[in-house]
């Protein structure tokens, strides 16, 4: 569905993209991970036909973004990381305008727009001026806007930036719905950790280069991301924390009111032995569990030591 090969882009002396390659199958949700300035937005802008690459090829559904931009535009829904809205529009007029801009006939739009507003939970704001919407609502409206021509591919650049937790969850639910609808989605987002379960593939980009790419689980194991163990005891927590620091595979121990956090580089067998030892020492363990390593950890691990963060 999306094919990127040796894509490079330079702004003056700044190499924004350095020969990145990428393949995304239809129906895949692809998470784009990387620090600010790594080249995520640049890649997405090129896919959205807003920016020309210096070299390399980018194709959407087989159409080259530089040769057949109009065909590409028909197939993509793009949501930039920063966007404005025409404040004097009402919500449904806003969608009507973009629908018309894609050449959708009015009768069809009359049917479509209530559905889109329903999808993004803005039905009750149909007659509200865009100006008066909250940030989360504007974000969802923009998402609805990017769906107006029923694109195959969604390019969402930080769709949840600046949203409060509640709004993020709403956004996540909408994205899940879109995934169910079979859209191919490229997403770069702060809420990637929360999205972990719906992202099929991730690409980690740094300094314009693709550092890692593949399934989330593959990358996690390949990057040998430390496990984080949570231990809660009835008593003598600090004492245990001190003891744990000398244990093998333990890289870092944090102890606070919530319990002990142990950064652990061992595998299942070593983890089991650690638990056995703790019990042998007769600590009153209430819980001993492995925290879900998420994309954020992967990201931090991969980009560790990079000056970009």
């Amino acid at each position, binding site marked *: 569905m999306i094919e990127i090969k040796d894509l490079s882009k330079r*702004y003056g002396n700044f190499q924004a993209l350095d020969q990145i390659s990428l393949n995304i199958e239809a129906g895949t949700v692809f998470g784009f991970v990387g620090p600010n300035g790594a080249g995520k937005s640049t890649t997405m802008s090129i896919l959205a036909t807003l920016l*020309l690459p210096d070299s390399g090829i980018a194709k959407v559904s087989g159409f080259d973004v530089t040769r057949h931009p109009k065909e590409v535009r028909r197939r993509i829904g793009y949501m930039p990381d920063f966007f*404005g*809205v025409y404040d004097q529009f009402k919500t449904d*007029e806003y969608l009507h305008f973009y629908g018309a801009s894609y050449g959708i006939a*009015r009768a069809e739009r009359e049917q479509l727009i209530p559905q889109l507003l329903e999808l993004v939970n803005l039905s009750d704001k149909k007659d509200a001026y865009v100006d008066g919407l909250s940030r989360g609502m504007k974000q969802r409206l923009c998402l609805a806007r990017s769906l107006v021509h029923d694109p195959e591919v969604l390019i969402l650049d930080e769709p949840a930036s600046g949203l409060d937790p509640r709004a993020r969850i709403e956004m996540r639910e909408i994205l899940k719905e879109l995934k169910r609808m079979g859209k191919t989605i490229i997403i770069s987002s702060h809420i990637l950790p929360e999205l972990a379960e719906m992202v099929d593939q991730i690409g980690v980009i740094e300094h314009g280069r693709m550092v890692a790419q593949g399934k989330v689980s593959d990358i996690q194991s390949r990057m040998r991301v430390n496990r984080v163990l949570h231990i809660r005891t009835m008593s003598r927590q600090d004492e245990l924390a001190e003891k744990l620091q000398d244990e093998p595979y333990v890289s870092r121990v944090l102890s606070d009111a919530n319990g002990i956090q142990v950064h652990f580089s061992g595998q299942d067998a070593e983890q089991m032995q650690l638990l056995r030892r703790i019990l042998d020492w007769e600590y009153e363990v209430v819980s001993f569990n492995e925290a879900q390593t998420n994309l954020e950890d992967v990201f931090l691990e991969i980009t560790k030591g990079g000056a970009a963060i």
Partner: protein
Amino acid sequence: MKMKTKFGGGSNLWINPVLDKEFRLRMRTPRSFVALLSYILILGLLAIGFIYVTLGLQDQQSGMRFDPSVSRSLFYVLSIAQLVLIAFMTPALTAGVISGEREKQTLNILLTTQQSSTAIVLSKLVSSLAFMMLVVLATLPIYSIVFLYGGISPSQLIQVFLFYIFTMLLLGSIGIMCSTLFKRTIVSVITTYGISLVIFLITGIVYLLLLRVVQQSYYSVAIPPTYSWIGFILGLNPAGALISIFEPTLSSQAFLMTNMNAQNQAPISLWLEFVLVYSVLIIVALWIAIRRIRPVRRKSKNRSSKSNHPVNPSTSTQSDVAEMTPNPPEKS
């Protein structure tokens, strides 16, 4: 009922969505009404002031009289004042239409729709000019004062209004071109006013200077030539062109024709020269705007970067100009 207020869409050839949006949103801001009101107020006050002053002057000489010749000069004054107002207002209306969307971060989204660059640029131009035309037509009641006293034919009035439309088109095209080329509205506005200044003022000043020089040289020769090329320069000036519509003899005078008769016509009417020369400029400006609103493909650039030059000069030189960088790559 409500259906009618929603965008015409693909089926409507005349009102495309961008134009519809521009019309709609422009009239939803109070600024448009304030602009319209102040424009009419300025011109109206000018007309009343002119009548007041001329009547006052005549009072001392030949009693209260406002005859056709005076009303003709009122027409000239109004027309020139209107031209000056148009020169001030058109750049303000057009020089921000593209860069404004860029600054509001709505341009990117618009550019990913199916609207062509031509549709976007021309819709923006047409909507701005439509508003300007509304403003200018709203001044017609002031012109009716002139018709009350006579001295001006309706055809002259129509010619003058057509000339205004052309001038708006000229300044509007330049405004849109600047708006496309420069990332920031303020730079675009200043540049557009700069170019307008050259067209409106510098051409006139250059003409007057050259006129002085040429006339001086006439005294040093026995038989002065019957024609001078400097008329072409006055033809580049909107005021010169406008006056040549009221007073066709100005064209001959501008070219310093010494003995005026039927055989000795000016090579070209000033207003005709104005229209011809600036039509080319309008087309060029719009062509640049349409071409540059989206990223431009430079073949040489692609080639040079394929050979992996460490620094690509053709890209770095463009950095000052809006090269469709949606936002600088990413903020930190």
